[in-house]
Structure formats: structure tokens, C-alpha cells
């Protein structure tokens, strides 16, 4: 069951600066009390954006110049911490299609890829250049070229990478692995048989 092939993403960017932005910051824990992921877009970076009385604090995501941005730019180890899929779900529901950062927390990266949210890594210099370019011109169109391994924006052409398995999954339209995993269920049963009884059935 092939999904949409994700080869290239185009859109405007917004820089959320800093390293080690954890998933508690992306979606605070109190918003995990939900039995579906609907509506999570509203909770994105909630405590970074809102004061305790609910008023906006002037976060970059609420800056009208960056309204409608679909590519988030950040530092290293983006999405570290909790495994909550709510974090990439919130990004997708808020309209993001790609994250350009120096590196990613691994659970976040896997969760994001499964949703078709492209996470590409660039060097610190490239990240700084891209951040500056977007600040100078928030209307600048960014191209995240998954196929070509580049991020382009105006005069900038930056090398961008992602693990080959994720790249291949996005390009071929197999980023949600469930269909393919289901195809292997016959072999799964054989492995289960070989490994012996389930602990839970003791």
C-alpha cells in the first residue's frame, strides 16, 4: 500500500532557535490527556507561546511575518526526551511538512517519519545561514529536496542529510510501515514459534 511519495517540500520557514528542544516543550504533558490526536495543533509549543493567563508572549510562531510557515528550523537534538508522538502530530496538524535541524532525538525522528514529516539534518553553519536568511526575508521560499539531499533558499544551497532508510521510505511512499509489516505476518508467526512462548501467557 504505497502512500504519497515525498520527494520535495516547499514553503516558508520559521526559526525556533535553541538546541535540545524537548518534546515536553513541543507539547506540554497536560495536553497528552486526549484519546485522539485531533486538535493537537493548538497545543504546539503552548507554554513557550502563552503566559500563564493564556495571553500570547510574542513567540516567533505567533509573529505575523511567519504566519503560514510550513518548514521549522531549529538546532541540534530537536525532539529529544519523551516518546510522545503528540509532538510530531502537533507539528503536522499545525501545518508543518518538514523540520530542518542539526540533529534529532531518535524517537521523535522515527515518529515524525512515520507521519511523513520530513526531518533533515544540516550543519551548524548551514542552520545559522538558513535562520538568518529567513529572518531577513520571511517570505523566502525554502525547498527541502529530500531526493537531492539539499535545502535551497534564495542564494543558499545547503547539504542536507537523513538516514538512508528514512529517505528511501519518504521517496518511495513507504513512510508509514504498517502495510509492509502486515505483509510479513506469516514470517512473524514463524519467528514467534521459534522464540517460544509469550511471557504474558505464563
Amino acid at each position, binding site marked *: 500500500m504505497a502512500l504519497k511519495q515525498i520527494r520535495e517540500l516547499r514553503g516558508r520557514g520559521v526559526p525556533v532557535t535553541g*538546541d535540545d528542544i524537548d518534546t515536553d516543550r513541543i507539547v506540554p*504533558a497536560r495536553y497528552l*490527556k486526549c484519546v485522539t*490526536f485531533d486538535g493537537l495543533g493548538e497545543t504546539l509549543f503552548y507554554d513557550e507561546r502563552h503566559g500563564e493567563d493564556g495571553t500570547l508572549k510574542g513567540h516567533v510562531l505567533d509573529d505575523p511575518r511567519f504566519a503560514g510557515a510550513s518548514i521549522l528550523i531549529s538546532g541540534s537534538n530537536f525532539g529529544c526526551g519523551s*516518546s510522545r*508522538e503528540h509532538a*510530531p502530530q502537533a507539528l503536522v496538524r499545525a501545518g508543518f511538512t518538514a523540520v530542518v535541524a542539526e540533529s534529532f532525538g531518535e524517537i521523535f525522528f522515527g515518529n515524525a517519519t512515520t507521519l511523513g514529516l520530513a526531518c533533515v539534518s544540516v550543519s551548524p553553519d548551514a542552520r545559522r545561514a538558513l535562520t538568518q536568511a529567513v529572518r531577513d526575508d520571511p517570505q523566502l521560499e525554502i525547498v527541502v529536496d529530500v531526493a537531492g539531499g539539499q535545502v535551497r533558499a534564495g542564494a543558499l544551497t545547503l547539504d542536507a542529510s537523513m538516514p538512508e532508510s528514512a529517505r528511501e521510505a519518504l521517496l518511495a511512499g513507504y513512510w508509514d510501515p504498517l502495510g509492509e509489516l502486515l505483509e510479513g505476518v506469516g514470517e512473524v508467526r514463524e519467528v514467534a514459534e521459534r522464540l517460544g512462548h509469550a511471557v504474558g501467557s505464563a
Partner: protein
Amino acid sequence: MSEARSLYQKVWREHAVRTLRNGQTQLFIDTHLIHEVTSPQAFGMLRDRGLKVLMPERTIATVDHIVPTHTRVEPFEDPLADEMIRELRRNCTENGIRFFDLDSANQGIVHMVGPEQGITQPGTTIACGDSHTSTHGAFGAIAFGIGTSQVRDVLATQTMAMSELKVRRIEVTGRLRPGVYAKDVILHIIRTLGVKGGLGYAYEYGGEVFDRMNMEERMTVCNMSIEGGARCGYVNPDDTTFSYLEGRPFAPQGAAWDEAVSRWRALASDPDCRYDDVVTLRGEDIPPTVTWGINPGQAISIEQTVPTVEGAAEGEREAVAEALAHMKLTPGAPIQGTRIDVAFFGSCTNGRVSDFVEAARYLEGRRVHAGVKAIAVPGSQHVKAECERRGIDKVFKAAGFEWRDAGCSMCLAMNPDKLVGDQLCASTSNRNFKGRQGSPTGRTVLMSPVMVAAAAVTGEVTDAREVFGVTREAVA
């Protein structure tokens, strides 16, 4: 003779079902643990696609994140929390999944329940929609925290798509000094290797310090592997592991036990296996360690001063400034003497019987400092019952701690236990992220259980060795 391999490599090979189109491995998961927060959406996805749980006997559920710890009367005051527990009950009932519910003596934080029940076994693959699943690696299991779509994948296929990790051996030689605990070991490792140092790696912990640790101490270390960026962490199984597991409800019995032990022994990393990286640390060099910032790598010895922006490496200055601004600490000042408002004792990192027993040794006859709110939350109902059997609860209560029922509690504050405003909390938990303990401006200082006990009685971040008169010299 076959090639020498690490435990990780052996377990990976045994559980690899096949290679997927993108080169990832379809990996068989022996045991799947679920809880109320990250599973309802997965069951919803299965329903939407008309799929069933493939091997329900391999999934075990409990409820932990949203559980109030001061009362268990239902319905919960928080209607959202109430909806989550009802949804989990429904999903378990409809799918024939074993569930340790609130009324079960076995309920607790999911990472406590697995080991206590003997569900967590060496050489197995374990997955759970919670990043601290790495805890189970203490038994020589390969245990991954996963997202909800992967919870769905495991429910539907008992497998998930993964890429094989590299393996870094972290060897801690010698002995720990008195007053230094497993929590200090992992905080020191993260401080040394960084919060992203483990990206791409499984951590294998070994060396004399780990050989000597009991299972609860090993769990504390493995638990925080993810805070160092490593997707999983493990200790090779040994006699300590086997004696912990023997006789537990889900452990093999009789002849099957002997067979299992010899199989588990053979799974340990071969002595001559190659690691992708090896790091060696000296146990004697590890001090009582506390965090000063907003990630677990921003940590210092209790004897050090809070960093300054100017003193930080150039690439770190922005992060140091942000952390200092949030923590409202004085740059360059000793961390000792920082006033605390709350002492939180619990979590999947340090909510086990030995944590309570060790702290109680020092709390006996002492009182929590005036104005400090101190709560003790056993990680599981078994921990609670055992502490009560041994009178540990009385020591905590006499000292002025509130003694609660089991749950995740103020580690992530999804239940009513939360910091208020910019309260500063001395915490035995695992994350000091901004807002982690329920108030966006709340502040967390991570430390060992005995250090939290010392902070509770003095009202400030302090060196437990001085407060409790512990010699600093290593015992020969």
C-alpha cells in the same frame, strides 16, 4: 567458532523477521507494555483500519501517568484523565489484553511492573510507548521507547520497523565512594557524554561498578539512557539478574527456569566482541551530582558552582543563558544553599524499595524543613506495600512527607501533583525540562534519593554526606 557478538547484536539477530524495502529490519517484539496515555490513539487507528491485535497475550497493560496519588476514588476529578482510564479498560477488554488496573495489587508505573512481575526477561525485545522503556535493559533485555504509531504497529503485527543501532560500551571501573549512588552514575555519564552523545547508539553498561550493583540500581541507570540520547541501554545478565527474577510470577519455573538461565547466560556479550565505541570512567571520580539547568546533561558536582555564560564554551553560551534564566540561579554561586520549595521522591527512575529504604536510614528522627512540601510516591503498589511492611512509610510520614499511592505523579505532572509558579523542586525523577513538573515556570533539580532527603530536611540543595555525616573516603 562463531563470530564474537554483543548481547545487543545477538538479540537483534534472533528477533529480525526480515528486511523491509527501505533497508530497515522488521523486528519481532516479545513483550509489549502499554499504558493509558500513548495507547488509545493506537487502538483507534486499528479500529479505523479494521485490524485486530495479532498476539494479545504478548501485550500487558497498566495505568500510571494520569493516576491521582492522593485518592483513587473514581470518577477522577479530571474528566480527561477519567476518560483515558476508561478507554484503556475498554481496549483491554475488547482485545483480551491482561490489565493491571487500579484495584490490582500489581498496578504501578509500567517500568516497575514489568520487572516486579518477572515479565522483563533477559534476551527479550520489549517495546512500550514511553521513552523510559530503556529501564528494562537492566535485565539484558533490548527495550525501546516508541511512539503511538509504533504501538499500533506492535499491536497489529507484534513487530516494528527499526534500524540496527551501534553499540557503545560504557565501563565504570573501581568502586563508588560512600554517598554516591546509581543516580549519580547516570547523571555523571550524561554530563560527560552529553544529552546527544548517545544518538545512534545502544549503551552497554559494564565494569566493576555495574557488576556490584543490585537490579534496582541497574534499572536507575538504564532508565535514563534516553536522557543521554541512547535509544536503549542494558547490562549483561548475571547471577544478580537471575536471583532477582527467580520465583517471580511470570518467570519460568522448574526445569524451564534452569533452561532459561543457561540460555540467558549465553546471551551476554562475548568477552572478545567488538564495540563501535568504548568509554571508560572511574567509579571513584563520580561525585554526588545535581542538575543546575533545563536538561539532564546540565549537571555539576554538588561541590561545584553554577556555570556562568562567559565561562561556557562558545557554542554553549546561548543554552547556558537560557537555562540560567529559567532556573533563576546566580551564575558562579555554589549550587549548595539553593532554596527548595518541594521535594519529590518517586518515579520510574528512583521509586523502588531500595530507594525508600536508603533514604529512610537518614530520614529517621529528622523533619522536613518548614515550608517544604515533600511527597513520597512509591513507583508501584508492590513497592508501597513492601515499604509499609517494613515500616518505611512511617519514617517518611514522621519526617513530614506525604505518603501516596503509586503512579508517575510529579515526574511529569499529568495527575494533580504539580509544581505551582516557579517553585523549585529537588526531585528523584529523570527530567528537568522547562515545565516538566506541571508549571511552565517550575524548576527542577535532579538528584539521588538520599540527596533529595537531605534537601527536604535542610530546605536547600545540599551535600547529603555532610548533612548525614557520611565519610567521603572509599571503604577498602
